[in-house]
């Protein structure tokens, strides 16, 4: 249930890993921050999460460092800031040590999400698996960004099974938004055929641009904040717009995360 909380929780989930969940999650966070929203990005791929890697964050507190019964007023001590130019958003990465992943349970994570209610948006990156943690977070999510690809038949079969399972688990069809990544990549599978298989049209499509994605990951800078001319950048920013009801316009080149509008939005969010 998403009641009793004002922040919007977007969980980026898929039934296939390695198809760009972390790229989408980090860019959603960056794009929302670019638009002036207060955003916190949480990495719940607890064993092998890549958020810290993609954002080049080192030696910052992780989700495993947060005590089980943390009081709301202490949560800020465990949140790190990612900053690029004038744009900043908060991050809680996955543990650095695999052993520490076992110390994180759903109860703590749900309590953390509740304590983060002063953010406009909470973006959650996940492991591609139906596990207790993911299900608990999907329960409290406003939107499940269900990431898809149309390049490999076995992956499409898993997407179909996963999407149908999510609906069978009782999630509202409007809450689950299939988003196609790597759209237009050279495969023999049409995106429209995947839509037929899923029984639902893609909510949005993200262009295939391996180089732009790869450059962004290696530079530690989300594409939406970079000076890339890639269509992928535009597509991701458009996706951000769909989640904020932003009127359609080109992304602003100069980051405005700490501007006047941003200030009021942050004020409002508290």
């Amino acid at each position, binding site marked *: 249930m998403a009641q009793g909380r004002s922040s919007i929780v977007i969980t980026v989930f898929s*039934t*296939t*890993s*390695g*198809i760009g969940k972390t790229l989408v999650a980090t860019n959603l966070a960056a794009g929302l921050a670019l638009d002036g929203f207060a955003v916190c990005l949480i990495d719940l791929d607890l*064993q*092998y999460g*890549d958020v810290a*890697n993609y954002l080049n964050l080192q030696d910052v507190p992780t989700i495993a460092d947060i005590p089980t019964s943390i009081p709301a007023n202490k949560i800020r001590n465990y949140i790190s800031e990612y900053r690029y130019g004038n744009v900043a958003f908060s991050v809680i990465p996955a543990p650095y*040590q*695999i052993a520490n992943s076992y110390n994180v349970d759903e109860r703590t994570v749900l309590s953390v999400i509740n304590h983060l209610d002063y953010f406009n948006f909470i973006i959650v990156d996940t*492991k*591609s*698996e*139906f596990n207790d943690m993911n299900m608990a977070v999907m329960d409290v999510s406003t939107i499940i960004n269900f990431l898809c690809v149309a*390049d*490999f*038949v*076995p*992956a499409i*079969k*898993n997407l179909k*099974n*996963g999407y149908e*399972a999510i609906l*069978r688990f009782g999630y509202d069809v409007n809450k689950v938004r299939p988003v196609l990544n790597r759209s237009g990549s050279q*495969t*023999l*599978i049409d995106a429209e055929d995947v839509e037929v298989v899923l029984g639902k049209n893609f909510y949005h499509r993200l262009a295939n641009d391996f180089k732009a994605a*790869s450059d962004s*990951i*290696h530079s530690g800078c989300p594409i939406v904040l970079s000076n890339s001319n890639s269509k992928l950048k535009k597509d991701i920013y458009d996706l951000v717009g769909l989640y904020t009801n932003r009127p359609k316009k080109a992304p602003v080149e100069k980051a405005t995360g700490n501007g006047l509008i941003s200030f009021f939005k942050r004020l409002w969010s508290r």
Partner: protein
Amino acid sequence: MNYNVILVDADDSTLNHTVNIFKRFPNFTLVSSYREVKSAIGQSSVFDPNLFLIDIENTDNRNMLPAFADIFPQAIVIGIMSKWDADITFESIRGGAIGCILKPFSGEDLTDAIKLFSRGVRNTIPSSCSFFSAKGRSGKTTLIANLALSIVQQTGDLVAIIDADLQFSDMAIFFDVEPVTTIVEATRDVKFLSPLRLNPYFLPVADNIQLLCGPRRLEYSELVDVESLTAVVRMAQTLFHYVLIDLPSGLSPFSTSMCEVADTVFICGMLNTNFEVKHIKRTLPLFEKLERDGKKLNIVFSRADDKQKLEIEKQLGHKVAAVLPNEFLMVSAANSGNIKNIMNQKNLLAEKINKLAEGIINHAD
């Protein structure tokens, strides 16, 4: 084929039972029976036996199995036992038995067992490999399917694939088959099964390759528990020459148990962002412990070349068994369920996989 059978069992009821069932199966002749294995070894040659049924719950009998193989090289040995025991079965197969059946057995059981256990060219001890990956899309399933094809091509032996990637199993798609019975039913029934009865749960997907399919529905994965899956794998290890186990990505009780039960562990990764190497480096100490305990550890990276291999080895501080090139043919073959043809073609991927398969075969010899 006609069989001159010698029974080695101290239990008279087994003798009576065997005599009775052979009345209906004229191709089986009980030429002699012994209560003690020593007598059987010493006296059997005069009866020109070609099939021994030996009670393998008796330790002395098991210890003498290699002697049967030496003295009667033309005969086959089938172990008989009243209760399934994987350890005893392993020991017996290593000693020279071709397989084991449960007592009381029927004539049909014996006929089926001879047929089943004589498949392929059993000149190896059973060997099994588990395939671990930190994250999905590691090329693990592609690797397993092709290794199975390569092992069969090189040896003519029998390979089983167990699709234990419970939520997102897709091996059936690679071979373009529709699952009938799956890992869910096999694990549910395993307490009541023997190798002979487990075999029908495996679906033939290519010459000498059989697949235990993953669950038909994602939610059914919840019905599979680690203990039952381990029992299925251990039973399968006595039924097939090679067992290849596809695992869900990440560390879990399933993946660690399956790695413990296998002789060789493959750690698979696909080189995309280079963070994959970092993830495997973090995981490696867990597997190096298994390596120290005697397991073979093979690290395999897809989408990498030999130059990158050296760099990866340097980063990991561990030898990489193989790097596999990105083969577009493979993607299109998997998309069309036509994977079998890839290993018949000359390409770098097939070459590298054949070499890896050779490693598995040599390890088993």
